């Protein structure tokens, strides 16, 4: 069993009692809700004549179904309008703060929590969304839950959980040009498997993690769940504190910053903490990673050959065969030159300001390939606004990208933004599952934002490091 890790400490601080099931009842410090997984939970509450126990510790936004083009109400899609109205009614009745699109604070739930400063170290954070692991970047214990558990949290402010093991993933070295946080996590999932993290929480540590800004750390923690780990975290440090200081919450409550800092420092994993497992990753050896298959674990370095199914572990072979058939790729080839129809820059993994900046730096002075439909969907209204002020919107639009409003968009195809037929998409999102982007014949290639930009320009999967210099600016 682990001992002295952030996970152990935060768990202990939030444990209310042990339940008769043997699970612990944990206090929930922040409950984020959105329109897709919460309405049924509010319905269950009503059936039982229960109220929301801690409305002040609950925060809502709308992201999954929100249109990214025309957002005038009522939404063009009746089902989307109904979900939005239901959420509006639920939060109004319960007195829950709602970052709706009229506030300028709306966005993907895992982008807005950190932006507003309500995501903090040492909090327990839950949301009916598997990518809640994102908030672990701040040293919070954050994980996704199902709708019945949302009911539990709404009604009691707590959740029933069993404690997991802790695996430390030590990433040392320096990332090379064109290589990002996304590539670290894709490599981790490739190496440990999509189910490798089941039963574990991942602690990301090492110099390559410490060197990352908060956005990069969020990209990594975000995809913990793709490796089977329900939660992942980074110990809070000066980078974390600097970010927090600038957020609304601590700008409005500066005294809170000084008051809470000792707590944040106290929950860091001890130097002599004990882990259930430790894995080492060499950041120097990484190159941009792209997926060739239909699970996030099916990734390779851009210059590596696609593996033959029989080279893989026995339990991965059948999945690999089906994936290669779906993606129409051959073992032995690299992914370079794989033709794409769509470039999607967005999602809770990679749609924050630095993500957009890096992609824009590649796009500047270039043009989207004539056969490619390219779109940028900022992670939040604030990202959208800041990017506009910096001129990134112009850069993208001049190159031929569509510039959209904030939301989950084509990451999961719950609004109008979907792949059609067997289109192939270079995507900065987190899941390449069959059907994920809205078409069951669609083909998703996951990659970092710079690589998406490079693919958008060349019309095929391209090593961003080898793009020719822009001559005209």
């Amino acid at each position: 069993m682990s001992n002295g890790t952030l996970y152990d400490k935060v768990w202990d601080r939030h444990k209310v009692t042990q339940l008769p099931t043997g699970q612990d009842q944990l206090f929930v410090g922040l409950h984020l809700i959105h329109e897709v997984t919460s309405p049924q939970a509010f319905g269950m509450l009503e059936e039982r004549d229960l109220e929301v126990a801690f409305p002040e510790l609950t925060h809502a936004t709308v992201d999954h179904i929100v249109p990214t083009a025309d957002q005038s109400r009522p939404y063009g899609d009746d089902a989307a309008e109904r979900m939005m109205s239901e959420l509006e009614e639920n939060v109004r009745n319960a007195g829950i703060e709602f970052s709706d699109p009229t506030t300028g604070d709306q966005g993907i739930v895992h982008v807005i929590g950190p932006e507003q400063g309500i995501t903090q170290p040492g909090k327990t954070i839950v949301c009916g969304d598997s990518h809640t692991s994102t908030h672990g970047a701040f040293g919070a214990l954050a994980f996704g839950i199902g709708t019945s558990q949302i009911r539990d949290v709404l009604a009691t402010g707590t959740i029933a959980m069993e404690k997991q093991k802790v695996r430390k993933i030590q990433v040392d070295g320096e990332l090379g040009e064109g290589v990002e946080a996304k590539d670290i996590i894709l490599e981790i999932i490739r190496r440990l498997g999509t189910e490798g993290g089941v039963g574990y929480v991942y602690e990301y540590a090492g110099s390559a993690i410490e060197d990352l800004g908060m956005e990069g750390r969020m990209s990594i923690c975000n995809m913990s769940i793709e490796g089977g780990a329900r939660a992942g975290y980074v110990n809070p440090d000066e980078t974390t504190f600097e970010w927090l200081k600038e957020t609304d919450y601590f700008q409005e409550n500066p005294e809170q910053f000084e008051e809470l800092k000792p707590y944040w420092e106290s929950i860091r994993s001890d130097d002599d903490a004990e882990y259930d497992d430790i894995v080492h990753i060499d950041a120097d050896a990484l190159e941009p990673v792209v997926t060739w298959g239909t699970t996030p674990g099916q990734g390779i370095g851009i210059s590596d050959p696609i593996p033959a199914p029989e080279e893989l572990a026995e339990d991965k072979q059948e999945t690999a065969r089906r994936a290669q058939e779906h993606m129409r790729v051959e073992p032995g080839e690299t992914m370079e030159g794989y033709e794409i129809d769509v470039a999607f820059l967005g999602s809770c993994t990679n749609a924050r300001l630095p993500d957009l900046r890096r992609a824009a730096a590649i796009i500047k002075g270039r043009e989207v390939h004539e056969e490619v439909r390219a779109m940028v969907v900022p992670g939040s209204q604030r990202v959208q606004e800041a990017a506009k002020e910096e001129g990134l919107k112009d850069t993208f639009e001049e190159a031929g990208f569509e510039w959209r409003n904030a939301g989950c968009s084509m990451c999961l195809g719950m609004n109008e933004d979907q792949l059609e037929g067997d289109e192939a998409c270079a995507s900065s999102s987190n899941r390449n599952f069959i059907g994920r982007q809205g078409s069951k014949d669609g083909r998703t290639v996951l990659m970092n934002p710079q690589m998406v930009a490079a693919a958008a320009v060349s019309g095929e999967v391209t090593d961003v490091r080898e793009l020719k210099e822009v001559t005209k600016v």
Partner: protein
Amino acid sequence: MSEDIDIPEVDYVSGSGIPIRGNDIDTDQIIPARFMKVVTFDGLGEFAFFDLRFDENDDTKDHPMNEARYQDASIMVVNNNFGCGSSREHAPQALMRWGIDAIIGEGFAEIFAGNCLALGIPTVTADTETIQELQEWVDENPDQELEVDVEAETVTYGGQTIDVTVDDAQRKALVDGVWDTTALMKANAGAVRKKAKELPYVQESAIPEAE
């Protein structure tokens, strides 16, 4: 406040089986996102595995859920990392509404297993070989019953009883009928308020008065 929700004990599930083969079957496969544009779980059963069961013209494809012999099945036999990906409870809700009462597999994604537990659906595990044998047996005996004994951690089929694993907390919750945790945890409201007061980041104003 009414707390008279009847939580049945789930110590034993029996019924005929249906094999769903493949590792890493994600919840987007189990219920594609477009069917989640709803505000209740009612009626999700018909959309379970929709894109694997129907083509673009809504004609049926080869899938166990389309086969007449499995229409009465209530125990699903799956492979490894079943239910990975999105946390959507719509996935087990769809399976439950299709008729599934228990799932036997090599391994389950955590959020999925937790969602199943919240619905009183056991997710019991066994090794690769055992699962393959079980899937083959179900193929050959689609109208025969399997018996999942949650408390004893066994599955009985075709005249034999094999050992399976049920997570400790899950077993206790199901067998004792305490898998619906809302009432259980609500009963500790006093301790919850006390815990909230101890946490440095929780403001006094956020803590409700005692009921």
